[in-house]
């Protein structure tokens, strides 16, 4: 299926957010996720299924003022 990951359309085969993250190389990374604009806690990624057109934000620690 095709989902929007950080503003870019990507093809993923994983059925859940956890599977998609692993597929995209963020399996062990310190990241926070939001699905379709809502915070998705790490503990909920395994149980959260994805559908075509979903919007996934994957955020990491970054410089800030």
């Amino acid at each position: 299926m095709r989902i929007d990951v950080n503003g870019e359309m990507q093809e993923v085969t994983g059925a859940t957010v956890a599977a998609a993250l692993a597929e995209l190389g963020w399996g062990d990374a310190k990241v926070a996720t939001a699905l379709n604009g809502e915070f998705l806690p790490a503990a909920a990624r395994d149980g959260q299924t994805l559908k075509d057109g979903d919007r996934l934000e994957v955020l990491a620690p970054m410089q800030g003022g």
Partner: protein
Amino acid sequence: MRDFYGVTLDSPLMLGTAQYPSPAVMEAAFRASGASVATVSLRRETGGGQAFWQMIKGLGVHVLPNTAGCYSAREAITTARMAREVFETNWIKLEVIGHADTLQPDPFGTLEAAEILTAEGFEVFPYMTEDQVLAQRLVDAGCRVLMPWGSPIGSGLGLNNRYGLKTLRAAFPDIPMVVDAGLGLPSHAADAMEMGFDAVLLNTAVAQAGDPAAMAEAFGLAARAGVLAAKADPMAPRDMAVPSTPVIGKAWL
């Protein structure tokens, strides 16, 4: 001394982590400043986030995640929830921006987000103007720290409304307050601390200085000098001159 949600800071300096020429320079600036808090953000992962986080952890300072760049309460709330999970802290520097040119905080969005976040157990550091009515509403919403601006973010103008800041400080003697944004020189930091504020938060003035580590050290010293001065009970200014050398005993020449 006022504390920040139960945390007493070793230094009244809070330093941002953005805009440095390199990560090594940022690290040097932190070491030279003695800053006790580092502000950080969350952005789309493009590869550098993991190494950055390791470096921040190595600084051994308290981490204050921000919601920088959010223009609505909804956006800021979602960002705060994400930040709490990644940074493992209830602290959040709540920024809801109201205008792109001035980066002035949106008081209505800030209050709305503060109410929801404090109910969720966040320890909110709201970035705000020096408006006293807003301050009361934020305190009513559960904020136990306030962060009035000195002047617009990145402007380096210093304390733009000393009267407003002074009255705000006097109106909330029990609330820890951080002057955040707009400081350009160490004298601005000393000024804020002399006025009785509990900390200063800055980024651009250090990161964009020709020698960030030296400027960071200067800010650290200035903030500390301001604290000492405030504790030492400064004299009241007066309009007329008063001789300091004794008049009695002066020779008849």
